[in-house]
């Protein structure tokens, strides 16, 4: 193994490490930290102890002969901030994954349809997509999330709608340029059906572009999710979530209880950073020409 060289390789290394960490947290975090993420009671040997609220980071508490350490302190309700931060990864990453998958799938299908069929359908779809693109993403997501209500699937749908136009526009553009590519015309002349032209000749050539957009839009989805839950949309307390906790922490920040909001905020920054680093450095490593231009 050699050390990474240059910005792109370091970016990929750091980004991958961050992404791996957050994926691990999303998968196993909740079972590692136990109940303290959602309640302030500890049960030791059948006896129930209550954890006091607003303990500063690094506090130790001895309950029933056992020492508990709160490295990030406790929040206004006595829940362990560290536990909440760790188990918060699951909700946000699930939502980001679902919404990215939905928007990529729908955007690609609509883009293929619009680019290949053209004509009136293309006009109408492009108009709708461009209007959505022109609309501020978060505001659109807020409106849809408010409409759909709480739940993982609902908030994912709200975010997905915002990102469909990005995929749609990119796929449509590539399809338009591929439609007149000689190898596609060759397939037409060879008597290939429209279905096989789209699925076998055009789609595989669009995939690299879709893949390079995925990590970036995944990071975007995390930010949008945090924005929505910051406003209390789409999530039901006491589900641990960074955006939601950031907002609660904001109310206590000026009173000196900084740890309630700062740690969830840091998690948002680091997770977005991780996915962006992976996306950007992969683009640079796999597509050197694109970066130079």
């Amino acid at each position: 193994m050699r050390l990474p060289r240059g910005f792109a390789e370091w970016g990929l290394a750091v980004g991958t490490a961050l992404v791996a960490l957050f994926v691990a947290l999303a998968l196993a975090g909740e079972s590692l930290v136990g109940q303290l993420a959602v309640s302030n009671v500890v049960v030791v040997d059948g006896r129930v102890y209550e954890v006091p609220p607003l303990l500063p980071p690094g506090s130790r508490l001895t309950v029933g002969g056992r020492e508990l350490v709160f490295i990030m302190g406790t929040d206004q309700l006595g829940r362990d901030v560290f536990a909440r931060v760790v188990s918060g990864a699951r909700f946000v990453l699930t939502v980001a994954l679902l919404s990215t998958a939905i928007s990529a799938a729908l955007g690609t299908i609509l883009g293929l349809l619009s680019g290949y069929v053209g004509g009136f359908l293309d006009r109408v779809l492009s108009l709708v997509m461009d209007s959505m693109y022109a609309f501020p993403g978060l505001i659109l997501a807020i409106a849809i999330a408010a409409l759909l209500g709480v739940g993982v699937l609902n908030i994912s749908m709200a975010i997905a709608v915002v990102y469909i136009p990005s995929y749609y526009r990119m796929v449509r553009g590539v399809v338009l340029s591929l439609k007149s590519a000689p190898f596609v015309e060759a397939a037409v002349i060879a008597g290939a059906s429209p279905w096989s032209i789209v699925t076998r000749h055009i789609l595989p050539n669009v995939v690299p572009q879709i893949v390079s957009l995925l990590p970036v839009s995944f990071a975007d989805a995390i930010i949008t999710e945090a924005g929505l839950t910051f406003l209390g949309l789409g999530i039901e307390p006491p589900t641990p979530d960074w955006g939601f906790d950031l907002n609660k922490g904001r109310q206590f920040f000026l009173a000196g209880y900084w740890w309630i909001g700062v740690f969830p905020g840091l998690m948002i920054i680091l997770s977005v950073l991780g996915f962006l680093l992976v996306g950007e450095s992969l683009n640079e490593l796999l597509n050197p020409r694109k970066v130079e231009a």
Partner: protein
Amino acid sequence: MSLLRVQDLWVRYRTRRGVVEALSGVSLSVEEGEVLGVVGESGSGKSTLGLAVIRLLPRSAEVRGSVLLNGKDLTSLPEEELRRIRGREVSMVFQDPYSSLNPVMRIGDHFVELMMEHGAAATREEALEAAGELLERLGVPRERLNDYPHQLSGGQRQRVAIGLALILKPRLVIADEITTALDALVERQIIDLVKEVKREYRTSMLFITHNMGLVAEVADRVAVLYAGKLAELGEVREVVSNPLHPYTEALLRSVPRIGGSRELRPIPGEPPDMRNPPPGCRFHPRCPLATERCRREEPPLVERGGRLVACHLRS
């Protein structure tokens, strides 16, 4: 009955800057097993002719006249039926072998897809077997079936493209400038291959090129196009040895020959602007023999000694 009969074909493109007439009433035919060369400069309409036959013109093109393949009019055939004919009865080889193969598909899959689509092979293995056999006859090792297009040289790709055009044993192959993108050595190999295909498969061909020399080698008859109209049409040997139309003569003089003592003479001037073709004979502004009549009157296409020519001076 001719295999292909193009009758009074007109093609107009509507562009933002005006209507371009690419073909103005062209009629010609290709017999079974015959190679018809189509020569002309850029903008003469020769590629439009090829695309019109296989009906691949852009939507902005307006087509009149008929294209009869085996008696069926391709210009009015419904899309479904046309798809069955494309590939199986008529196929095409393109100019640029670097972009006419799908970059993300293996060479073998190109054949598999084509053959399965047309029901020419029941299984993948059967298709690959047939493809491998054909490729070897065309001078491409069978192992290339597992490669992607970018792993092949330009010449090999063009051989693969020819293989794709031949695998379904079509009766007519349209070859549009198939050696233009290749270097001289590979061009020679591909021309030899075309001659061999012609001998072995007896496939009819529409061989489109700007190079009179290549036509002289592979074609049986030749159609000389100028500005969307037929200038001359006849047996290659006769046309080459005794061109009747001044344009044909000029084309022949502009082909370089290694070791030849003959002076190489380019054709003066440029092909006409097809939004506004010159009146009378379309070649008159560049013709050294043009008379007052050529400037006013359009020469009809008349038969003269077994071939057709459109020139006032020869009729």
